[in-house]
């Protein structure tokens, strides 16, 4: 399973908690569309830290950078796109 698949699975389970069960595309808006709120963004951050060992502390952080699977993958790195 690639990093992108892992992330997509997590996002899909998060969306299910928010009542959204249909499959989402990699470029679908998650935050600006209102599907996820800021608390959900925090859970994505925690997931990225625990799953991929990312540390976002020294990067400029904008919750809108977490608006889609594609934009989140920019934090994770190129490997996930294989």
């Amino acid at each position, binding site marked *: 399973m690639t990093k992108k698949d892992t992330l997509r699975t997590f996002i899909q389970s998060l969306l299910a*908690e*928010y*009542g959204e069960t249909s499959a989402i595309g990699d470029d679908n808006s998650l935050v*600006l569309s209102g599907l996820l709120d*800021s*608390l959900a963004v*925090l859970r994505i*951050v*925690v997931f990225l*830290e625990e799953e991929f060992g990312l*540390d*976002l*502390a*020294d*990067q*400029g*952080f*904008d*919750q*809108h*950078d977490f608006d889609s699977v594609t934009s989140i993958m920019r934090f994770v790195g190129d490997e996930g796109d294989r």
Partner: protein
Amino acid sequence: MPSQAAFRLIPALDTYPKVVALAQTIPGKIVVLVVYAFGLSLHTGNWLLISMILAVLTFFPRYRAPLLVCATFIALYLGGWLNFDILANIEGGELIGRAWFKPVVILVVLLFFAGYYRLVKEKKGGWLGKRPIRNLILFYLGLICLASTVPLPGTLWIAVWAVVIVLGNYLWYFTYALLDRQAKETPHLGVQTGHFLPFWGGSNVPFPKGAAYLRRIEAKTPEQLAVCQLKGIKLLAWTLVLTLVSGMLEQIFYGNPERGDSFMGITLSMGIPSFNSVLHSGAGQTPYPWYMNWLALLASFCVKMVNFSVWGHGIIATSRMAGYNALRNTYKPLQATTIADFWNRYYYYFKELLVENFFYPAFLRYFKKSPRLRLFFATLAAAGFGNVLFHYLRDIDVIITLGPWQALVAFHVYLFYGIVLGTAIGLSQLLEKKRPAEQQSWLTRRVMKPTAVIVFYCLLSIFDNPDRSMVLSDYFSFLLRLFNIHPE
């Protein structure tokens, strides 16, 4: 026939295809602008200048960014630049009356920030580039301490404090620029000056957020602009409705002798004393009955909430007319079901400022091994520490008058307010269970939870008083009087 549920006091113009199509034509644009200008004239005395700026932005949307820079500086100039009244009566104060003085101070502050911004971008890995917002705030605090303690000759003293005042006005706009420095949508800093203290108004809180966010919500096609402007008209209409509601509430609660004790034919008045009257009726005065204290508190809370909505809606309506499809600052606060939810609904852009400048940095850095403590600490950092720091720096006139330390002492009541608010929001987030709304009864969702939240904020609002002459015990004394307890 439309059902009662479909009734809308203000028609959803932005969803009518024919209206949207019309608003994209030249006659349609003129109608939109005239309607908005008329509504604005009922809302603010500054309507003519704003309407003229909106007309230019509407007909030349391709040049929105540079036009916005011009509009913002023109509005600053015609508005007398910034308020330096606190310095006017001090020795050397005649300096601020000189025509060149205020623009020069603003230029100095903007140039200082341009240099800082460039340095931060160039030294990404250094201590400055890693924590630019914290360093900017520390620099500002240092400047305040320096201006307060170093004996300076009158003219220089005035000049330094003028810089402090202007930097304070721009401070949170600058932090947004620093936050946005890596976002791909961020325009050149020179273009961003159009969003610093923008012509549509606001306060030290940037409405609506920073340049990168504005880029995202900007209307990019004629259709988007038409929809955005129609939403602006709708929001202004709602603002005017709320203005009437505010007038009616003030008449019914307090009466209005200045208007002949009548508002739009309403002469009914409950004669409730003002909140300040009941708050100050402590020792040495006959206290009001406990129920009158409650009425005064509730009436003050209601009127404050409506007036606050009016203020925020007016700003957002104009930003929408300028082509930025921003969210409302206040959105159905009475429907909030948790303490955290109310804060988000009541003062959205202030909450966003605190989240981006304090919550995220704290969340990303501290207590990573302990998720619940991590969330609580970050919330306290934002709603408590950030909130108090913002208001302390905002009341720069108190700092100039009393000095930074005495101003902090005079600020102790708000400090208490911030700690209680931060703790309550933190606990609210920790205890909140993701339970689908449909699993809760209507009574719980629509009545009990919102009522509990409103009562909490209503009681907490006792301590959110700009009067810095009172001490914490005065407020607790009033709190006890609400329950008919009269401490000696």
